[in-house]
C-alpha cells in the first residue's frame, strides 16, 4: 500500500510560478515501521524544460533529528522534471503505535535563459509515517535476563569452494601473465628472435607479380638466415650453417636451391631463370617450413 500526496505549491514569484508545476511525494507505505527500518521516499518535481536543481540546496545525508537519519540523496532526471530519492532510517524506539512527522525542506531550482539565470524554490512539504513498537512494554517475567534476548535469524552457510577455486584460477592466470611479460621483456636472458617468422609475415605483403618482388623475397630469406646465424651467410657457408643449426637440416635441400636461385638472380642477372628454377610457391612453402623449423629449434 502506498500513500500518495499531491501538493500544489503557492509560489512566491511569477517567474517561479512558471517553473515548478507540481511536487509529488511518495512512500511505499505510511505505517508499520519499526526501529531501524529504512524509509524510501520518492519526490517527483515537475518542472518547465531547461530548469535544473541546485545540488547545494539538497539536504545533506546525516542526522535529521535524534531519531531520524538521512542516509542517501539521489537526483534523477525524468521526463518533465526531476526525481529525488531520499533514504531515511528511523531509530525511534516506539512504545506504542504513533505517527512521526518528518520536516519538509526547500529545493532551489535554476533556469538558464538568454536574459540571465532565474531561480525558483520548490517547497517539499513535511510528511509523516507511523511507527510501531518491536516488543510489548511489559514482557513476561523471566528468571534469567538472558532469556529476554531473542535468537538471531539463521544465516545461510556459504560454500567457500567456488570462491577458493576462482581465487586459485585467477592466481594461476596472474602468474601466467607475469611469465609472459617476463618472456616478452626478456627479464631472464635474451629472447630468441624469430627472423623467419618475421620474413614470412613480410613475404605475405610482397606482390608475386612485382618484377622486383622475387629478388625482394630472396632478400628476406637472406636476412632471416643472416639473423639466425648472427653473420652474413653466403652460399658456400650452407654446410657449416646446417652443422651449427641442426634444426634446419631437413631444409638443407631447399636452402641449397634457394642459394642457387639467389646467385642467379643477384649475381648472374638471370632473375627469370632463377624464378623458373625455384618458383614462387616453392619459395613461400620453403619459408613457411623454415619458420616452423625455427619454432621447433
Amino acid at each position, binding site marked *: 500500500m502506498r500513500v500518495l500526496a499531491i501538493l500544489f505549491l503557492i509560489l512566491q514569484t511569477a517567474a517561479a510560478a512558471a517553473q515548478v508545476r507540481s511536487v509529488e511525494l511518495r512512500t511505499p507505505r505510511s505505517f508499520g515501521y519499526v526501529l531501524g527500518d529504512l524509509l524510501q521516499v520518492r519526490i517527483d518535481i515537475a518542472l518547465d524544460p531547461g530548469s535544473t536543481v541546485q545540488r547545494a540546496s539538497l539536504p545533506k545525508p546525516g542526522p535529521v533529528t535524534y531519531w531520524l537519519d538521512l542516509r542517501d540523496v539521489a537526483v534523477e532526471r525524468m521526463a518533465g522534471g526531476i526525481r529525488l530519492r531520499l533514504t531515511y532510517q528511523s531509530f525511534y524506539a516506539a512504545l506504542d503505535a504513533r505517527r512521526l512527522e518528518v520536516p519538509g525542506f526547500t529545493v532551489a531550482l535554476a533556469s538558464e535563459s538568454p536574459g540571465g539565470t532565474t531561480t525558483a524554490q520548490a517547497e517539499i512539504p513535511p510528511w509523516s509515517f507511523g511507527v510501531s513498537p518491536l516488543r510489548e512494554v511489559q514482557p513476561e517475567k523471566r528468571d534469567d535476563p538472558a532469556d529476554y534476548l531473542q535468537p538471531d535469524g539463521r544465516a545461510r552457510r556459504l560454500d567457500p569452494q567456488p570462491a577458493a577455486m576462482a581465487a586459485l584460477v585467477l592466481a594461476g592466470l596472474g602468474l601466467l601473465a607475469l611469465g609472459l611479460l617476463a618472456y616478452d621483456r626478456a627479464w631472464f636472458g635474451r629472447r630468441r628472435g624469430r627472423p623467419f617468422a618475421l620474413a614470412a609475415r613480410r613475404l605475405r605483403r610482397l606482390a608475386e607479380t612485382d618484377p622486383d618482388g622475387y*629478388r625482394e623475397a630472396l632478400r628476406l630469406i637472406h636476412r632471416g638466415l643472416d639473423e639466425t646465424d648472427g653473420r*652474413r651467410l653466403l652460399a658456400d657457408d650452407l654446410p657449416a650453417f646446417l652443422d651449427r643449426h641442426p634444426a634446419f637440416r631437413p631444409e638443407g635441400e631447399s636452402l641449397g636451391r634457394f642459394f642457387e636461385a639467389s646467385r642467379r638472380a*643477384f649475381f648472374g642477372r638471370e632473375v627469370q631463370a632463377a624464378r623458373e628454377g625455384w618458383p614462387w610457391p616453392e619459395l613461400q612453402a620453403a619459408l613457411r617450413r623454415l619458420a616452423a623449423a625455427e619454432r621447433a629449434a
Partner: protein
Amino acid sequence: MNPPRPGDAMLTDWREAAGRFEAEVAKAVVGQARAIRLVTIAIFARGHVMLEGDVGTGKTTLLRAVARALGGAYERIEGTVDLMPTDLIYHTFLGSDGRPRVEPGPVLRQAEDLSVFFFNEINRARPQVHALLLRLMAERTVTAFEREWHFPNLQVFADRNRVEREETFELPAAARDRFLMEIGMEAPRDAGTRRALAFDPRFHDTDRLIAEVAPAVLDHASIGGIASAIQHAVAAAPEIETYVVALWDALLRPAEAGIRLAGIDMEHLVQGGASPRGLAFLVRAARVRAWLEGRDWLVPEDIRAIFPDVMAHRIFLEPIHEMRRAEIVPALCRAVFDRVPAP
C-alpha cells in the same frame, strides 16, 4: 655453374691447365691447398706474391715448385743486410785472366725472358733494394747499362719469415701495396699430413721433391694474354659492385659500419690504406677465382675467398694497434664480412 659459351673454349682449356698446374705443385707441397690456390690465382691475375710464415713451413719449397711448374726463366736471390740494388743488376769479379769483368746480375741475366724472380727473405734486404723492386714490380722495367729492360712476363715472388725482427727492414707501404697478395703459410693442421711431413723421407730431400714436379705445365709466355681474357670474360653484376664498395667502406670506417671488436676503440683503429689499386687487385683476383671455379660471373664468395690475402696487408692501423696486427686485421676482415650484406 653456367655452361661456358663456345667462344670460351680457350678459357676452358686454360682452366684445365690451371688444374694440372695445381695438381703438380701439390705433389711437392702437401697440406697447403689454400696457398696453392691463391698462388694460382695470383699467376693468372699477373700479380706479385709475398709469402709469409714461420720458418720451415714450406714457403721456399712452394715457390720453387711453382717456378718449375710455371716454366720460363727463373732467378732467385737471398736478401741480406749488405745486399745493394746494384747486386741485383750486375756483379763484378776478376776473371781467370786477371781482368775485371762486369756481368749482368740476377735480374738481367736471363734478359727479358725472366718469368719468375724469387726474392728469398726479402725483409733482410735494405730499403734501397726495396726501392728498386718498386719499379720492377709496378712497371716491370729496369734501367741498366744505359738502356731500359722490359720483363713482360715477370712475376715477383718474395718470402719473409715473421718470427725474426733482428737485422730486418720492414717493407715500405708502397712496396707492400704492389704485391697482389700476402699469403700467410701455416704448418698443416691435419695430423696425417703432419706425420708424413715429419717421417716420410720423400719430404726430406727438397731438390728431389721439386724434381717430381712436371716442368712447364703452363705456357708462361701466353699467361699475360689469357689473364686479360679472363678479366674481360668474367662479368660483375651491379650487386657485386655495390658489395665490394660496401666492404671497402666498412674496412676503412669500421665504426660507422657498426663493427665492434673486443677491447678496441673502433673510431681510432684504421688509419688508412686499402688503396684503390688494392681494390682493383681485389676484383682482378676475384675474377680469376670465379674463372677457376668455372663461372663467368662473380659471386660474393669469390671476393671473400681472396679478401684477407689481398687486402690485409694494405690496411694501416693506428700505431698503438700495429703491434697486435696479426690478430686484429684477420678479426676485422671477418667482422666486415659478417656485417656487410651480400645481396
